[in-house]
């Protein structure tokens, strides 16, 4: 067990203006699951890109030893030949091709350029059995869920005779069940002698599967912890990541809750494509002034669909029901009406729905509120800059300037830009959909603080989250959804993970 399979020695990698990695060392033992942890921007992904040859030899300094041989990778192909396979956060599968075609893409089972489909199918079946996926090899990738897609990626890695498997945030987009499956598979592969490096923000998962943990901070190696040595707690790891004790992960707040500010009654929504499929069934809920209300539920419970359908009918068809704002019935026919009447929606998909990545921070912040800084439709750009600067300071967005493209920011800072954008629109009600997904511990605390401030200003806040500790940590009241219905409402003092989970899994019939 103690044989070293991989050693990275004093790796330094610079980008124009930033040192992403400085003298980083990493030792991975053969047959272990090694976790790489650190805040966003600590250099985890960069280090793995150096290892897999995405950044070729010459663009960094330092040595890589794999199975005691010095490696100088010019591209990914060379690292894959040695059995180092990386699975990126954004899956690299082609949606319209079948599972089999995807697994053997670039590695086709062919003779003189003619593909042998029988062999391809056969081998795919073998690989799928290994990863515990019972799907037809001819099924298209679009037709299976993200969890299964992740397994296909692993099957693809196995087809390349992988020795060292690198997983970048493999469970970020998965629900609890699928995550559990994936982690069990990793343990299974470990038994077969496959070494794995896993990057993740989910501490509980890491502590469950990892043998050792290397912590990076600001591009430097901080320490390597041996999990089996005992005494490794979540708090211990967080301390290494942020460089200080984070005794309270959720900032304290004295809620001052007022009257009902927002109420939804008998809300029904049908699927946008299948007009006979009811996605939301008779939803009733309310939010009070100064209150943080949570919506818990499993993937597919209809939480995002609820938020989007309320936000100017951005989801679904045949929508019926009533919305009351401060007691008066209102209608949001489209998004701009919803915004004007004081609704804001922070999407779960920051990059896809929240930001215009190629535009700078300033333009992103002002987009929904251009009317408020314009006269006769002409934008007062000077005022725009002043406002953007205000938010940069207030929310502590880490960036050289507001002229920075949103795409160049880390996840936590991107989320702060999205929050700035919706705070600038001066809403009464904020719906935050997975506000801390893919964000590191330090930035999470900042985001929670902002959410608390918003509630203290007397706004109504609705937080949708898949992480139960988060729901329990920041919400005053929790609604639980399952299969498009609200199955429970729990006050903060009565809420536990157990009783929420009971409502989350409550099915019809």
């Amino acid at each position, binding site marked *: 067990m103690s044989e070293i399979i991989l050693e990275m020695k004093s790796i330094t990698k610079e980008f124009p203006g930033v040192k992403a990695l400085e003298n980083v060392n990493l030792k991975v033992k053969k047959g272990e699951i090694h976790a790489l942890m650190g805040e966003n921007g600590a250099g985890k992904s960069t280090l793995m890109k150096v290892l897999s040859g995405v950044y070729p030899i010459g663009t960094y300094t330092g040595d890589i030893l794999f199975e005691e041989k010095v490696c100088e990778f010019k591209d990914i192909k060379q690292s894959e030949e040695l059995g180092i396979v990386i699975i990126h956060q954004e899956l690299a599968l082609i949606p319209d091709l079948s599972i089999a075609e995807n697994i053997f893409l670039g590695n086709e089972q062919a003779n003189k350029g003619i593909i042998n489909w029988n062999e391809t199918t056969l081998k795919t079946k073998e690989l799928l059995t290994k990863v515990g996926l019972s799907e037809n090899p001819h099924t298209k990738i679009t037709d299976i869920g993200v969890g299964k897609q992740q397994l296909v990626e692993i099957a693809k890695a196995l087809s390349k005779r992988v020795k060292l498997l690198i997983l970048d945030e493999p469970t970020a987009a998965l629900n609890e069940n699928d995550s559990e499956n994936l982690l069990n598979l990793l343990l299974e592969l470990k038994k077969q002698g496959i070494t794995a490096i896993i990057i993740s923000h989910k501490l509980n998962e890491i502590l469950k599967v990892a043998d050792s943990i290397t912590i990076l901070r600001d591009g430097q190696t901080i320490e390597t912890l041996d999990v089996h040595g005992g005494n490794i707690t979540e708090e211990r790891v967080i301390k290494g990541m942020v460089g200080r004790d984070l005794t309270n992960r959720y900032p304290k707040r004295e809620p001052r809750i007022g009257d009902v500010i927002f109420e939804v009654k008998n809300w029904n929504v049908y699927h946008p494509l299948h007009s006979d499929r009811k996605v939301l069934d008779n939803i009733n809920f309310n939010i009070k002034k100064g209150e943080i209300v949570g919506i818990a539920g499993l993937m597919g419970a209809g939480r995002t669909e609820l938020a989007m359908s309320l*936000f*100017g009918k*951005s989801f679904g068809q045949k929508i019926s029901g009533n919305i009351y704002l401060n007691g008066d019935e209102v209608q949001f026919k*489209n*998004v*701009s009406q*919803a*915004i*004007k009447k004081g609704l804001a*929606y922070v*999407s779960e998909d920051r990059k*896809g*729905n*929240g*930001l*215009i*990545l*190629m*535009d700078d921070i300033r*333009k992103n912040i*002002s*987009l*929904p509120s*251009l*009317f408020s800084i*314009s006269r006769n*439709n*002409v*934008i007062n*750009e*000077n005022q725009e*800059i*002043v406002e953007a600067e205000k938010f940069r300071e207030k929310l502590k967005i880490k960036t050289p300037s507001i*002229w920075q493209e949103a795409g*160049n920011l880390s996840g936590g800072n991107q989320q702060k830009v999205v929050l700035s*954008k919706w705070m600038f629109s001066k809403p009464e009600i904020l719906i935050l959909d997975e506000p801390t997904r893919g964000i590191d511990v330090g930035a999470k605390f900042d985001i929670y603080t902002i959410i608390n401030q918003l509630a203290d200003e007397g706004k109504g806040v609705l937080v949708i989250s898949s992480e139960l500790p988060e729901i329990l940590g920041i919400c005053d009241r929790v609604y639980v959804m399952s299969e498009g219905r609200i199955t429970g409402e729990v006050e903060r003092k009565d809420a536990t993970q157990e009783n929420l989970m009971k409502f989350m899994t409550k099915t019809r019939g």
Partner: protein
Amino acid sequence: MQTLVSMAKKNLRSSSMIIALVFIMLLFQILTEGILLKPLNVTNLILQNSYILVLAIGMVLVIITGHIDLSVGSIAAFVGAIAGILIVTYHVSTPLAIIISLLIGAIIGAWQGFWIAYVKIPAFIVTLAGMLLFRGLTMVVLQGQSIAPFPKSFQGMSSGFIPDLFGGGEIHLLTIVIGVVLSVILIFTELKNRRTQLKYQFDVSPTSVFVAKLAVLVAILLVFSYVLSTYNGIPNILIILALLILIYTFVMRKTIVGRHIYAIGGNEKAAQLSGVKTKKVTFWVFVNMGVLSALSGLIFAARLNAATPKAGNLFELDAIAACFIGGASAYGGIGTVPGAIIGGLVMGVMNNGMSLIGLGIDWQQAIKGLVLLAAVAFDIYNKNKAS
């Protein structure tokens, strides 16, 4: 110093195209032994390229929203044909005919915009269909024949010059006066902008850079008006063109509509969830393109003094090339009106220069193709280096 470097970097793309344009002009100035920048030829350059530049203005908006329009040449031909029939055959008055023509352009734009924005058919397909449809309709209404000649009042739009109120003989005095007045306006607006920026305590370029930049701009403006004044003065079409460039640059840079157009091209979903009425904006961008195509068709018919079935052939490609040379991104979200104009001028000067030195149309085509590829390759190289 650091701000200077970062400013230069930010403006590299736009300034590099201006440098390229100046370089190409100097090159042909030498190759043609000074003919290129003769007053007669400068005037010609403007007249020859006006209809492409009008199209490029509309096209860059379409490209910024992430679409493309292949039908503009055919629409220009069709509207030119309608104008010919109205004016020559039915003796409709020129102003009325122009208004009707522009309206027809708007209706055609609305027709295409409807399919693209609301039915969500890719613009490439809708406008490819439009290209065939309106080329065909042009031949139908013209019955395969040209219609000519137009009355002087209509021709004047393309080939007329502003009158010289002062009757200055050799030199067109009004042109000089306009040049001076514009220079003064330019100096005042720049100073005013700088003052407000200082009031907001923003970083501004150092005084020396500011003065130098302003001096160069004023010098270009004055020399340009002097050159024009030694021939026939300012062509009417230049006034139309200048107004269009000013208005569209302003709309794209300073107004909500402009910001919404960029937002749609940058990320349509995010724009929609930020309250941008994406369908409506896309629809109107195509209506606008229809109107400008119609205007381009009128200008071309007036210049040719005929409405012909072949009019507007391959205009769409010149207009699209102008946008891409001028820095627009094929993926949407990026591009500027002045950039498209400079891109159009690069193409125009090359056309004109290569014709002057007697290069055949065959080689002209080939070289233009390479320049387009080189410009975009340079752009992508720069972007990769930056990231």
